[in-house]
């Protein structure tokens, strides 16, 4: 690997609130090549804000600072709005958590994919339509033609999420950020969606940032895992070495899950050490 796809150094996200300043992300640094990186943490650990900050989607009044935040050599902090618009959706895409909220309810799925494609590529409607249908097929929709003309409320959660993935991948991005892409779905359905995502990422050689609260899922899906706590990365490790995690927080997260294999009772709970947050 020559040059990292994404460089993040000392990323901070601050919110100025009436009650004072809340720092949601406090100095996160990592580099990403064309690999699958997982970011795990509990609610409020800053994992989603990290993903949003990369795309410049931090909601106001949030404030993002970083020593370096660069995608493929392009500094995202100083880039013009025009460049950012070109990158967002074109070269970096994001799959959100819940297809119910993130798809446009008054446009058919096909129209939305066409819109995403034509925003970034010069293509005639007919070309875009073919591309959209091909993409729907790539995410294993059984009848792409039918799904194409359906509205988001007419499809199930699993189908909606696959449509969302189709829309995000139609522009052939280099980096995909998936923020809890399967937490709104059923276990069996979410495995299927992950499998499709996995195949497409491998096939197209993309970089993937997979944000989730599910340590077990992330470790089985990703190559490398960042564990976040209170806005910081407390541990970075290879996914297959998860069992050898050093940080007590990671170990605690691993142990507190009930498993089918053995019956521990009471379940060990996590004693949060204030020093972790320092």
């Amino acid at each position: 690997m020559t040059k990292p796809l994404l460089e993040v150094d000392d990323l901070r996200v601050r919110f100025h609130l009436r009650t004072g300043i809340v720092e949601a992300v406090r100095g996160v640094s990592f580099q990403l090549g064309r690999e699958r990186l997982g970011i795990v943490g509990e609610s409020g650990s800053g994992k989603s804000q990290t993903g949003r900050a990369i795309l410049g989607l931090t909601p106001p009044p949030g404030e993002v600072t970083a020593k370096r935040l660069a995608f493929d050599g392009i500094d995202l902090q100083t880039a013009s709005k025009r460049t950012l618009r070109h990158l967002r959706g074109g070269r970096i895409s994001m799959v959100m958590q819940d297809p119910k909220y993130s798809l446009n309810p008054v446009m058919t799925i096909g129209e939305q994919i066409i819109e995403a494609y034509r925003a970034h590529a010069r293509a005639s409607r007919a070309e875009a339509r073919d591309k959209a249908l091909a993409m729907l097929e790539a995410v294993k929709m059984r009848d792409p033609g039918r799904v194409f003309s359906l509205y988001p409320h007419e499809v199930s959660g699993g189908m909606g999420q696959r449509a969302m993935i189709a829309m995000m991948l139609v522009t052939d991005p280099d980096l995909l950020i998936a923020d809890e892409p399967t937490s709104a779905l059923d276990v069996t359905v979410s495995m299927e969606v992950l499998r499709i995502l996995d195949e497409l990422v491998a096939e197209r050689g993309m970089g993937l940032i997979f944000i989730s609260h599910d340590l077990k899922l992330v470790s089985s899906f990703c190559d490398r895992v960042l564990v976040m706590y209170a806005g910081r990365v407390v541990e970075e490790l290879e996914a297959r070495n998860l069992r050898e995690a050093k940080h007590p927080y990671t170990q605690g997260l691993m142990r507190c899950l009930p498993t089918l294999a053995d019956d521990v009772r009471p379940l060990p709970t996590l004693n949060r050490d204030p020093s972790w947050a320092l």
Partner: protein
Amino acid sequence: MLDIQNLNVVFGTGRLRVEAVKNVSFSVDAGESYGLVGESGSGKSTVLRAICGLAPITGGNVRVDGKEVTTPRSRDFYRTVQMVFQDPYASLHPRHTVDRTLSEPLAIHGEKDAETRILQALKEVGLGPSFRFRYPHQLSGGQRQRIAIARALILRPKVLLLDEPTSALDASVQAEILNLLDDLRRRMGLTYILVSHDLAVVAHLCERLLVMRHGEAVEETASNALRSGKAMSEYTQSLIQASQGFTRHPSQPAHAPIV
């Protein structure tokens, strides 16, 4: 304690008719904990809702403590059976303090001693008296679920219906709530019916469980059998596999076709 025979639940009529639950039967002994597992749309929550009167019983019998339930449910019924809902962010009234939330069931049932009962209920779920006058937005997700459990327990019911009580919570908080439920059951001799899509959670909390799919019972099995992984339908096997995380090379799981 609870006996359900050939339960059917049908919503709508004509073209919109949906058979949500088809001929489901099971019975739960006093002090036992029973799990209902399945994916969304399998009818597992509808069974719970039918028991406590939130969904119509179209056919079959539901007996609680030997007595057939009446529609609408009597006040006595709610003294015996209480429910805890999935999302503590949605199930507590946002403009009611903890005190008001907990005193409502007491007022409805004409109970005296509200003050001591509320303080005791808070203690039972591991929260101090300092939580009494807080609003839900001043509580974390785990604390809210504790309040929801306290509300359900304040009338001293015998049966607790738990509808995905931990799926909206973080893993570490889930462990705390599961421990609390385990502990309360032992101390108060409660009977649980737990609905969850997470096999590991059900196996942890329940002795026996029913796997459901498309409104029908697939199989009834024991947690021990589940752990040892023997004699199970293909569908249960695929659920077990899904609960063990992502596998890159699946051995063709028998998952439901996505419609």
